[in-house]
């Protein structure tokens, strides 16, 4: 789960991690008032869940309240990479001596949390990781004993910080790790971590990803959980709790099981088609869930066809078929649909569908070929209208 920078900074403050003074605003008037209160140059930052906000024009500096007002007018209510900006963070501009990168995240292969620190801050850290991996210091944290003093000292020395901020750096790191653990974060990232001209460490940016699986023990985060997907179908899918990812094609995909759906997308692409989405209907395949899934997929108006790929294991093909028939009928679908059914009670399922006049195949690749062909023809027909 993503949260906004201003929300992350609220959490930072709670853990005693220094952040520039700031507040969130929803209107240009509020922005002006905040700028007056801060009483120096401010940075206005769009609060939307997209990466690269700066490059996209979502972060701007204003030297006085009047400028802050007019600049925020250009940001608020406008779209940034497809998302409407409803809130901005108004933050005191800090004078930067040097920028660093600091993050804690989970490392899959060592099954430990890792601190990453680099003197190459404020830039795309993935690029640094590829180009000059030696510039990123990594510290794998012992799950039982946590951070040790010598480890902190070692990181400190590697960054060539001046001695008088040793204590500050130590507290910074310990607080961030504490926050990371207690919030069940999977990422706590500060880019840039700023050493100010005054010689203070400050989190100029703050990014926290919370583990979706841990929300049951974090009632306090429920309020932060705004459905933040930048796509309206993805947003609706989240509400319905159905794994869905929007892609750019015109063939809707529904299948059961994440691995099978991914493979279905790959096969459609292999046959020259373009998948419009990933959707995992999960186990069971009840009529209701099938209907909900088809509704989601067909919210996409670019669709020229739908491929439904069901492997009946514990899921019974006849149950799945019933759901498909009901859903297609009640949605009055007119675009081509190819259904592939295989496994438990396959013959019963196929009969149900064929009686209703639907194409049913046994082979995934053949199904993929068929839908690509039908969708292509349908698209042509559409073009003539």
């Amino acid at each position, binding site marked *: 789960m993503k949260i906004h920078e201003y929300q992350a900074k609220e959490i930072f403050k709670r853990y005693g991690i220094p952040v520039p003074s700031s507040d969130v605003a929803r209107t240009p008037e509020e922005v002006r008032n905040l700028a007056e209160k801060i009483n120096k140059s401010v940075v206005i930052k769009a609060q939307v869940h997209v990466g690269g906000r700066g490059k996209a024009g979502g972060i701007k500096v204003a030297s006085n309240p009047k400028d802050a007002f007019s600049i925020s007018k250009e940001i608020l209510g406008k779209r940034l990479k497809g998302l409407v900006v409803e809130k901005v963070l108004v933050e005191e501009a800090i004078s930067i001596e040097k920028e660093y990168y600091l993050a804690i995240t989970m490392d899959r*292969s060592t099954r430990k949390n890792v601190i990453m620190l680099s003197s190459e801050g404020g830039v795309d850290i993935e690029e640094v990781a590829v180009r000059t991996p030696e510039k990123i210091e990594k510290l794998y944290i012992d*799950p039982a004993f946590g951070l040790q003093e010598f480890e902190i000292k070692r990181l400190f020395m590697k960054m060539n910080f001046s001695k008088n901020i040793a204590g500050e750096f130590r507290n910074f790191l310990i607080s961030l790790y504490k926050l990371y653990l207690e919030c069940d974060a999977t990422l706590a990232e500060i880019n840039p971590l700023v050493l100010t001209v005054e010689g203070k460490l400050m989190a100029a940016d703050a990014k926290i990803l919370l583990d979706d699986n841990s929300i049951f023990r974090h009632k306090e985060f429920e309020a932060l959980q705004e459905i933040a997907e930048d796509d309206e179908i993805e947003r609706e899918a989240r509400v319905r709790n159905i794994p869905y990812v929007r892609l750019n094609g015109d063939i809707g995909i529904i299948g059961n099981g994440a691995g099978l759906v991914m493979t279905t997308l790959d096969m459609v692409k292999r046959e020259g088609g373009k998948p419009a989405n990933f959707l995992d209907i999960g186990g069971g395949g009840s009529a209701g869930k099938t209907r909900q899934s088809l509704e989601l997929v067909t919210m996409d108006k670019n669709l020229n066809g739908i491929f439904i790929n069901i492997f009946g294991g514990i899921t019974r093909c006849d149950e799945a078929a019933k759901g498909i028939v009901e859903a297609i009928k009640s949605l009055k679908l007119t675009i081509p649909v190819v259904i592939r059914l295989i496994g438990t009670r396959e013959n019963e399922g196929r009969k149900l569908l064929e009686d209703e006049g639907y194409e049913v195949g046994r082979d995934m690749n053949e199904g993929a070929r068929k839908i690509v062909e039908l969708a292509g023809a349908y698209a042509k027909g559409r073009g003539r209208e």
Partner: protein
Amino acid sequence: MSILIDKNTRVLVQGITGKEGIFHTEEMLKYGTKIVAGVTPGKGGQTILGVPVYDFAVDAVKEQDVNASIIFVPAPFAADAIMEALSAGIKLVVAITDGIPVRDMIKVSYFLDRYDSRLIGPNCPGIITPGECKIGIMPGHIFTTGKVGVISRSGTLTYEVVNALTLAGLGQSTCIGIGGDPIIGTSFTDALKLFKDDTLTSIVALIGEIGGSDEEDAANYIKSVDLPMVAFIAGRTAPPGKRMGHAGAIISGNLGTAEAKIKAFQKAHIPVADTVPDIVRLIKEIMS
């Protein structure tokens, strides 16, 4: 022979009184798995489907000589259940549960390091040695005995592959679903090591997907090992930054792409199948 489980494996079901627990206990019993005990705290003394229920794993081990456990306990309590099984001395723990927090799994994995036990999963379909023992939720009827070992990160896709193998007359020695989470107990490499020492397994099908670097590690391992293998990677069309269903199936930046995984296997001279029928074809070619 087979790996990890056979007809003599004595299985405990943790979370046996839940809906999933009851359903799959019955399915496993039908398959012929020796389910000898169940655990649900507070329900000790009851009997379900003829299986005695205990309050704690340690009691089940003491009275029923348990040597493997399967976990259906809900996510908030699943990590605790895994550690309970480990501390009771159970050598093989299979965690089916989906949605366990990452922080809990880091703890479990550290706990696991101190025991001479194996964890499979979580968020996996389990393990099966066809004709002998099924500790999982897979449809038993699609599996047949044979020489192909199968390792996979997903559920349904594994069934798809196994079904195709079975229809082509290629039976399986053992199939392991290692799980779709970012932190799992048994990696591809761990499973390959087990298959390497198994006299019955003559070839392995590895079904990987995007996210992490477990496939790359496996490719690196297999280079120096005499074990025929065919790989398949799902998610060639997956965009970066989007979770494709499984918690672990996500490309972060340029890490975890299908392309990198395919390249790693090709570099290790392991054939990579483009489709499911391709997996069958390649295995047939190598075996003949």
